[in-house]
């Protein structure tokens, strides 16, 4: 039941058996989360550092909870960009942390490839909690887990990822993971937010949200980054909401009961209307709970490998 790698850097190239193992293991932990006492001694004595170079409340809390529920010692190391600019290199920071005898490092960084770089300079297990616009594997795993729970399968599943595909680590990890599990993946969004060569990944591109709703069983709707550079890629929030936002009216028009995922936090009234966000077809809060179980599974599988 062991994984084929001692790190989780992304889902590109991760074999089907590994994803299967993680999803199955998450099942066990999902049960534990429903118990009155939610803690197991599995990783007692292990030290895990959450190294966050980018602020992320929910991913960090999710990992921290997962670590604590596995009885690991969790340490948060949040580095603001300002203190980085004061001088310590990532390599020095990592060497210092490792000198304190840690076992695993969960890393979030704005630069793609940072988790891979860490594997070259230290011996800890490295878990990618999001690197730039590259990958966010635990998010994709929890998305797949949630879909599997609700729909019962991933093989042959028709799923569309909606939004800013070009600047999304969630999109890329989902594409890799879902393809490996045999799903039929498409993407939908304004053409400026679709990477030029995405066809090479063997996925369809749809520019019409109604078509995306009609053709698929599941939509994974990404958060539109209103505050960042991504804002330059579409004319206005109003136009985005009108042509790519998912409203109850639009769902009704297409007469579809479609499963809707969202990695959060939601921009209500932009990519999802409040009605849809709170409606019966969405599983957003369910995803959040599953996130802890998935991260427990990953930490357990990697942490007991050594």
């Amino acid at each position, binding site marked *: 039941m062991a994984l084929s790698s001692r790190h989780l850097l992304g889902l*590109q190239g991760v074999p089907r058996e590994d994803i299967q193992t993680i999803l199955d293991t998450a099942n066990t932990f999902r049960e534990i989360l429903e118990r009155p006492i939610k803690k197991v001694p599995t990783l007692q004595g292990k030290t895990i550092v959450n190294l966050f170079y980018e602020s992320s409340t929910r991913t960090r809390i999710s990992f921290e909870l997962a670590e604590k529920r596995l009885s690991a010692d969790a340490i948060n190391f949040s580095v603001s960009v300002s203190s980085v600019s004061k001088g310590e*290199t*990532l*390599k020095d920071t990592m060497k210092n942390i490792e000198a304190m005898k840690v076992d695993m490092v969960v890393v979030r*960084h*704005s*630069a*793609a*490839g*940072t988790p*891979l*770089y860490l594997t070259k300079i230290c011996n800890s297990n490295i878990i990618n909690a999001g*690197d*730039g*616009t*590259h*990958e966010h594997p635990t998010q994709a795993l929890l998305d797949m887990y949630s879909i599997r729970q609700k729909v019962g399968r991933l093989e042959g599943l028709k799923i569309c990822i909606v939004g800013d595909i*070009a600047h999304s*680590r969630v999109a*890329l990890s989902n594409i890799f993971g879902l393809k490996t599990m045999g799903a039929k993946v498409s993407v939908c969004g304004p053409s400026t937010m679709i*990477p*030029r*060569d*995405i066809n*090479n*990944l063997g996925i369809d591109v749809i520019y019409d949200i109604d078509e995306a709703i009609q053709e698929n069983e599941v939509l994974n709707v990404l958060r539109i980054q209103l505050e960042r550079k991504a804002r330059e890629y579409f004319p206005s929030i109003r136009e985005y909401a009108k042509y790519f936002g998912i409203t109850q009216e639009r769902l009704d028009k297409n007469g579809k009961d479609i499963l809707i995922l969202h990695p959060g936090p939601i921009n209500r009234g932009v990519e999802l209307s409040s009605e849809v966000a709170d409606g019966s077809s969405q599983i957003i809060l369910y995803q959040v709970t599953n996130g802890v179980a998935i991260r427990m599974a990953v930490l357990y599988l990697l942490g007991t490998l050594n």
Partner: protein
Amino acid sequence: MKIVLKNVDIIHPGENINLKATSVLLTDGMISKLGELTNDDISDAREFDYSGKILVPGLFDIHVHLREPGREDEETVVTGCNSAATGGFTGVACMPNTEPAIDSAEVVKFIKEQASNHLVDVFPVAAASLGRKGEIISPMAELIEAGVVAFSDDGVAVKTASVLRRAFEYANMYNAPIIEHCEDESLADGTMNEGINSTLLGLPALPSVAEDIIVSRDILMAEYTGGRVHIAHISTKNSVNLVREAKKKGIKVTSEVTPHHFTLTDDAVKTYDTNMKMNPPLRTQEDVIAIIKGLKDGTIDCIASDHAPHSIEEKESEFQLAPNGIVGLETIVGLSFSELVHKNKISIEDLIRKLSINPRKILNIPIPKFEVGAIANFTIIDPDLVWTVDISKFKSKSKNSPFDKRLLTGKAIAVINRRKMYFDNQWFDLSGA
């Protein structure tokens, strides 16, 4: 002192010289006899047997960064020249993106002073605009008088078409080329070539069209003003085609390519190795094929290293945060022979044109003469020497090379210039007794 270079094949494409297994006698660093030597000639001369080696006019790198003044921790004029000599070069043109920029006669004089006792000739390229800011042209007349050979805002393109126009017009009074780093600023916030690999790696991308747009602009402006443009480190298929068409129309355009742009593709970035990060970025196989074609048909005039030393601290970092560029002076000959000559893409004569004759022509620098009475300016190359790149042995202060441990065939083994000789890690003064 007298030295004899024996049994060497002499190739000088500029003078149509191609002699097999012949000899050269140098007296005090000057050519005193070529061809058959008598016993008298070689008595009391130090002999070098160069059987199987070739002797060519000293190589010239039209695009290097010597970092001095400003970043002496990465390279100095002297260490850069040491690196050049080791790589087989007797002359270099150094780019102006120093701190301060080469935009005043004082900085030019300082750099020339640093190089004054070296075997390697250093020709500064001055900024095209003051401070390389793209606002007002640099004091070109004064800079030419101080000894610069071209103008460039390298690192970036000349910012606006209007400043570029003035730069062409003004520099043209002195027949000096504008060397352009072609990259449209508004498309330039990436770290690697845009394509499937940038998507897979999640890295911000630099589209090839950013280069093509400025190549187009520059060619049109060169045509309009009658100015001379030299396209630095060409890297895309479309840019090669644009230069080819412009040359056909008689527009004064020349171009150079780096060894990494004809050797590697953006597949090499897959490991996020910061030594694969350069600007222009590594492109695709399609671009490499177009570049080789451009080298073959003369669209690309020169091979240049774009030698860009960076400190270990700066390169040992997250890919997106690492600086662009690699050191190249000590691998350019080996890569050119391995990838071009030994793979039958271009002849040795053509390679020597691109590594020695053409860069000097573009910069209006005299080409070394192979005649009695001329100061010897030679590079001696063993085209068949198989060697392994070892960055720890680099003479450059910096070690940021993507070619460490690469097996190459062909290496410069000695250089002679300014009455000095360098071989086997040793410097010799040829003028002394």
